[in-house]
């Protein structure tokens, strides 16, 4: 065990704790840059929403709340299995870790499937901004702007999900090789931080795109 532990600490670190703290701080700093990345879009969305409030509400009313709320529950479930994967890694149970990593990837894929089914529905209804956009709305520009934000922000979120599933695939492979022990599993925890962050972004996307039109 002591040998495994010394193998887990890379030579530039004095202790395993220092290594863990370095990885943790690095990931949190990265997540703050992600807050800035999504934050700009959220900010400009607020401004356009203020200028075209009624059109943004009507655009939101065109969303499927059944698919949207299901997807929120699906993504929260994937965060839960990710948390369980981290817990399994901390206990050094690599089979359970692999199982929960696979479950997280699977549930994440279900989310993407539902998301793309929604995109297809919008495409068929000519709600994709551009030449094909069709509407009889009194504020067609505002409505189109709603869909610009909808596709840009959920698309960027979906891209993060795809990257996350790729990261989990690498971890799944490495957990199969029994690379993670109760003493060394930083990559699992770090990937978990990323996955939960992507979940948080969706919580806000759900609130600004799906909920505002429900009372109409």
């Amino acid at each position, binding site marked *: 065990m002591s040998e495994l532990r010394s193998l887990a600490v890379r030579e530039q670190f004095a202790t395993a704790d220092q290594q863990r703290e370095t990885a943790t701080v690095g990931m949190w700093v990265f997540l703050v840059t992600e807050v800035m990345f999504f934050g700009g879009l959220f900010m400009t969305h607020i401004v356009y929403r*203020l200028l075209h409030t009624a059109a943004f509400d009507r655009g939101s009313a065109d969303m499927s709340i059944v698919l949207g709320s299901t997807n929120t529950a699906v993504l*929260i479930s994937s965060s*839960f299995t990710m948390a369980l994967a981290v817990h399994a890694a901390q206990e050094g149970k690599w089979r359970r870790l692999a199982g929960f990593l696979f479950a997280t990837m699977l549930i994440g894929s279900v989310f993407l499937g539902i998301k793309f089914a929604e995109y297809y529905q919008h495409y068929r209804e000519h709600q994709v901004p551009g030449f094909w956009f069709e509407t009889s709305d009194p504020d067609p520009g505002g409505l189109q702007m709603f869909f610009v934000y909808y596709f840009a922000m959920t698309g960027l979120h979906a891209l993060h999900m795809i990257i996350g599933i790729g990261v989990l695939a690498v971890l799944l492979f490495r957990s199969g090789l029994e690379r993670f022990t109760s003493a060394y599993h930083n990559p699992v925890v770090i990937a978990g931080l990323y996955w939960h962050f992507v979940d948080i972004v969706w919580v806000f996307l759900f609130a600004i795109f799906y909920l505002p039109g429900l009372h109409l």
Partner: protein
Amino acid sequence: MTEPVVSLKTYTGIFLSLLCLTLATTLLAYLDLGVFNMVIAITIAVIKATLIVAFFMHAMYEFKLVHVILAGGVLWFLILVFLTLGDYLTRGWAK
């Protein structure tokens, strides 16, 4: 500082709370409360995000530097929103 370990019981409790909050925010959105629809939606989203950050991401149990970085991120976003809205809302463009 050694790694924080969160119990399965806590994870399950947070998971169920998040599902309940999702149901609550969806049902509340059906009521027409004017400007408060958005206030409630964002408030519940912030509560959900806080639960995820504190427990799923272990932020509550982490060392101080993590808290400083997290606070920096939130503060930066609030500066962005408040200064930009301070401009837009005083131009009389929004109806």
